[in-house]
């Protein structure tokens, strides 16, 4: 037992000597053996030298390797030495870790900029781990955020949720935290939590357009028209010339007409207002013209479809007049959409339908012929 311990101490001495001579290969062989021995592995000196040897291996051969094993071994060895309690090596171990952690951070940043997110994340995570060993009270919220961001970009959503959530707990202020955290939940299929964080982000950063946009997308995908209307209305107030949002608002009101027929009249009017506002911004917008034309057309068609068969002929005359007015209102918008793009199939179908409904069979057939030639 004593002989074995002596042999290990001898080996540790040899490792130090080889290191001092600059033979890092022999130094590593010796220190790895020493560190695996039960007695010598309990000595801070062993881990300090292991840290030093591996650090120099890293510096000599692996600085370009962003997943350097030598660096990891070195940092772990220094950390182990520190964990054994205060010793004559503690300060140097701290400095070693400080140096290595900064290289990890820099590699992470380089990889993040080069969009190599897997190693970027690993290095941010390692940086945070080793920084916490030497500065337990210090919190680098930016690095925590970056760990979350790179994990997100690497599609590791459990990790991105962990780090982005932590960065928020630590009051890291950036609307992107809410954006990426919400997106992480969304990509995991957790719509509820995604919505919570997007909404929090919007409350905290009301001027941030990205979060509003993603929330718009979220409600659009989920078909939650009432929430969609609410957020679009808010955003349009901030920028009344946002034509995309105006069109989306109109289309959302149109979907509400189907979902909530009790307020149908109100929704139709609001859809009309949204499209009209879009046309005020850009009178040559194809979608605004098409959608407005179709809104009037659909109203007329719905009125006809909803008629009971026993509607008397006097009432039928009045309804026909209403429908005729609606078809006539639809026509100029659909004609404008046609003028803007005569090859658009939807427009051709809509325009032909409006002409037909107005009993203008000649024009209806002309447009149908154009549609048929497009489909050939």
């Amino acid at each position, binding site marked *: 037992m004593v002989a074995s311990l002596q042999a290990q101490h001898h080996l540790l001495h040899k490792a130090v000597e080889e290191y001092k001579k600059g033979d890092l290969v022999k130094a590593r062989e010796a220190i790895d053996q020493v560190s695996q021995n039960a007695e010598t592995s309990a000595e801070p000196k062993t881990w300090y030298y292991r840290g030093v040897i591996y650090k120099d291996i890293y510096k000599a051969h692996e600085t370009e390797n962003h997943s350097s094993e030598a660096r990891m071994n070195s940092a772990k060895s220094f950390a182990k030495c520190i964990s054994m309690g205060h010793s004559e090596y503690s300060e140097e171990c701290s400095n070693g870790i400080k*140096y290595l952690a*900064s*290289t990890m*951070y*820099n590699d992470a*940043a*380089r990889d*993040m*900029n080069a*969009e190599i997110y897997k190693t970027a994340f690993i290095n941010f995570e390692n940086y945070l781990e080793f920084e916490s060993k030497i500065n337990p009270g210090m919190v680098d919220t930016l690095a925590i955020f*970056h760990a979350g*961001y790179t994990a997100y*970009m690497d599609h590791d959503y459990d990790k991105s949720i962990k780090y982005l959530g932590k960065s928020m707990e630590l009051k890291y202020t950036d609307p*992107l935290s809410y954006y990426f955290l919400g997106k992480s939940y969304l990509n995991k299929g957790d719509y509820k939590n995604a919505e919570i964080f997007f909404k929090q982000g919007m409350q905290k950063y009301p001027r941030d357009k*990205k979060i509003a*946009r*993603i929330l*718009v*997308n979220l409600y*659009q*995908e989920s078909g939650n028209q009432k929430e969609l209307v609410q957020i679009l209305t808010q955003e349009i107030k901030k920028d009344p010339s946002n034509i*995309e949002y105006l*069109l*989306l608002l109109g*289309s959302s009101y*149109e979907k509400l007409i189907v979902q909530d027929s009790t307020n149908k009249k109100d929704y139709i009017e609001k859809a009309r207002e949204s499209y009209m506002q879009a046309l005020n911004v850009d009178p040559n917008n194809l*979608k605004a013209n*098409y*959608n407005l034309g*179709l*809104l009037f*057309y*659909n109203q*007329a*068609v719905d009125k*006809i*479809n909803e*008629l009971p*068969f*026993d509607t*008397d*002929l*006097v009432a*039928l*005359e009045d309804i*026909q*007049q209403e*429908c*005729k007015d609606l*078809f*006539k209102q639809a026509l100029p918008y659909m004609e404008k959409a046609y003028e803007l793009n005569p090859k658009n199939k*939807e427009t051709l*179908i*809509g325009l032909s*339908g409006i002409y*037909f*409904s*107005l*009993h*203008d069979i000649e024009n209806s057939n002309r447009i149908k012929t154009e549609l048929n030639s497009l489909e050939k």
Partner: protein
Amino acid sequence: LKFQRIKYCQLFIFLALIFSSYTPPADPNAKIKVIFIYNFTKYIEWPSAYKKGDFVIGVLGNASLTPDLENLAKTKTIGTQKCVVKIFPTVKDIEKCHILFIPVEESDGLDLVLKKIKGMSTLVVTEKAGLAKRGSVINFINVENKQKFELNKSNANKNGLIVSSNLMSLGIVID
């Protein structure tokens, strides 16, 4: 060692902006014509022999109003009579019916139809200009973008149909 400057990837968020989707019905006026036809049954009296059994509405060939007529037949009776829709692919397939609708595409066959139904009390309904004068009882026309109808009372009388004066006041009477 200096810490690296960080840059974020550009965020691209696309909105799925689409055209309002709606497939227009082939003929929005078809329903209106069927409502007219249902109303005609209230204002026209058929001979007593026609007041028993099913009330048959025939359609010559393909017509855009057939689906609406079939919906009518499913949901309504004509007085106490069950309503039935029969499609006659050609003139020679025509059988005894209370109403026969001839779509515009089949209008050229009106004379043959009239020969085929001679002696029957059939309300012939057409939808091409001039046909009320050529033998149909009711002819749908478009006046100022609205669906109206012409009514030829003498053609009705020839077929043993009694037309109420109220219906005449609602249509355009042709002699």
